[in-house]
């Protein structure tokens, strides 16, 4: 009896290993800093009840998702002593011995018309309690999407916070061809960097992509006309419109929380100032008026104020302007360089580029809006372009690995840091999407 069970476990492990080696090619996330306080979770390989082999290992995608939160660590499959795939197969003692706090089991069932149903269950081992029993149905060609959806559900059940595994990121790559001309590409990928899709390719620079609050459009800067202009790009249709064509700078587009306005930087009146472009009834409102550079606006979640970069004090620092009263003031005081601010979803903090006094390092830091205190989150030499996940738990940013630009992610509590799979060319200007429906 025991022997038979062991044999069964062995064959399933073999199958799982085979699958994971197949999936290895696209799982190249490099975790550069982990946490020892992370909660141990086990995700057992899901059973496949259908024809042929699946091209994705759902359990390993879920497992990888949890490893990247910093809150959880996932046990390697070699350590498992049993491989339950249904609730009634779970033996709590097996997992208690492994000091596992939470367990995920599941199976996939083939339906007609390329559809698959995935049933899964979540267990609290210490309390011997089944926390979730659910199923999702979707296309056999989108197992990755379903794995992210399941991860979101489990994460929310465990933390009370909405998961970000089904969200996306957009970013730009620039690649020099034959050491001469650059080619710029605008990408959209899953939040884990997988399934990257090129939205636009251009011989002219692209930068500053920003998601519309509904996640359906991107605003960005393109130099395709020979000078910078702001474009709006509808993702589902690929339809693009050129929004601005002012003399000088047309940059740093930032969608307002209600999606009706875009804050931007224009130099049409002489130097870089922040304006608001009203989309419904096209017109401009000027926000800043200063001979120094004012740029990189970011809206507060309530839409009532904007933080931005200004060098009016001599070097770049972060300022805030109240849109109703026009009252403005400096908010960053630690360090000699603070720029490119981005509000956290709860409005409590802003994330920005930060260079401490006497330091050559450009890091990503969080500035607490009530205490004024700065927390440094990343520490490689040239970190830039922070963008916060919609649940406020993670920040994606660009960094240099030698002479190559790659994307890094750090949790906002600083517990975990990882780098996304390298794209060819330099990766820059990431922006995390809102929650997508």
């Amino acid at each position, binding site marked *: 009896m025991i022997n038979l069970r062991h044999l069964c476990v062995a064959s399933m492990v073999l199958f799982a290993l085979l699958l994971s080696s197949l999936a290895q090619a696209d799982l190249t996330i490099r975790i550069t800093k982990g946490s020892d306080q992370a909660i141990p979770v086990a995700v057992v390989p899901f059973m496949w009840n259908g024809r042929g082999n699946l091209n994705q290992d759902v359990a390993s995608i879920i497992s990888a998702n949890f490893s990247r939160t910093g809150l959880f660590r996932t046990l390697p499959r070699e350590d498992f002593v049993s491989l339950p795939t249904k609730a009634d197969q779970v033996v709590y003692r097996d997992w208690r011995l492994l000091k596992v706090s939470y367990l995920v089991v599941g199976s996939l069932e083939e339906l007609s018309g390329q559809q698959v149903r995935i049933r899964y269950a979540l267990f609290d081992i210490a309390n011997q309690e089944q926390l979730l029993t659910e199923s999702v149905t979707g296309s056999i060609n989108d197992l990755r999407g379903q794995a992210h959806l399941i991860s979101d559900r489990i994460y929310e059940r465990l933390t009370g916070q909405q998961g970000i595994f089904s969200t996306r990121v957009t970013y730009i790559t620039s690649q020099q061809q034959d050491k001469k001309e650059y080619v710029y590409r605008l990408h959209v990928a899953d939040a884990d960097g997988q399934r990257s899709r090129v939205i636009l390719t251009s011989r002219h620079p692209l930068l500053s992509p920003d998601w519309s609050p509904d996640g359906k459009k991107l605003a960005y800067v393109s130099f395709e006309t020979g000078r910078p202009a702001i474009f709006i790009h509808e993702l589902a249709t690929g339809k693009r419109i050129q929004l601005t064509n002012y003399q000088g700078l047309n940059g740093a587009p930032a969608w307002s929380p209600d999606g009706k306005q875009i804050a931007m930087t224009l130099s049409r009146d002489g*130097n870089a100032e922040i304006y608001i472009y009203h989309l419904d009834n096209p017109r401009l409102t000027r926000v800043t008026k200063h001979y120094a550079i004012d740029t990189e606006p970011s809206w507060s979640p309530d839409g009532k104020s904007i933080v931005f970069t200004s060098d009016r004090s001599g070097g770049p620092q972060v300022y805030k302007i109240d849109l109703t009263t026009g009252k403005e003031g400096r908010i960053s005081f630690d360090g000699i360089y603070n720029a490119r601010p981005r509000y956290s979803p709860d409005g409590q903090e802003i994330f920005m580029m930060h260079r401490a006094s006497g330091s050559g390092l450009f890091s990503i830091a969080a500035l607490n809006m009530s205490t004024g205190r700065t927390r440094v989150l990343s520490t490689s030499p040239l970190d830039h372009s922070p963008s916060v996940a919609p649940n406020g738990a993670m920040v994606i940013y660009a960094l240099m690995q030698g002479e190559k630009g790659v994307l890094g992610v750090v949790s906002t509590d600083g517990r975990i840091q990882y780098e996304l799979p390298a794209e060819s060319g330099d990766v820059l200007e990431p922006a995390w999407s809102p929650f997508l429906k």
Partner: protein
Amino acid sequence: MQQKQLEKVMELMKYSKVFALAAVFALAAGCSSDAKKDGTMDDVIGKEVHSTDTGGVSVDTLEEQAQGIITEAEAEAQARARAAEARARAAEAEARAKMQAILPAIRTVYFDFDKSSIRSEFYDVLNGHAAYLMANPSVKVKLEGHTDARGSAEYNNALGEQRGNAVRRYLSLQGVPANQLEVVSYGKMKLVDKSNSSQAHNKNRRVVFNY
């Protein structure tokens, strides 16, 4: 041929700036076609452009001075000298025209960290471009502003624009019409050296004349 001309210039330099100037015109006229092709000549040509541009000293002055020391007995020689003088004047005018038609070979000026003020060492280069642009009113130039790799992209775009504007302002003050100049900032999007060293940063902080 060029080497000989150069030697001649060097020799003349010893005697008089005026002679040197004329020789420079001759040299420039002689090697103008080479200057475009030969990158190694850039520095020389770039510098000389400045001296011709601000060289208010003309061959006329030389003639007047010369007349003072010529005796009547040497009338024939004087006539010959006049003819030579006329030829020199024509050559000079031609050289000047050619000079201003030559696109200055140095097309990049560099800036200090987080600064957009023009360094005095680049006045010569900018004067050369100003002369060229004024001699060729139909020519338009894009002044492309760039920064080093450090800092945020959009802030750097604004900084690159300030650098481009500083060059535009300088050229305007020399008399270049506004419609010949356009500033486009690329910030840190088009680095010439991607390494994180001060040499790389120095090379990247620039305004490029893109004709």
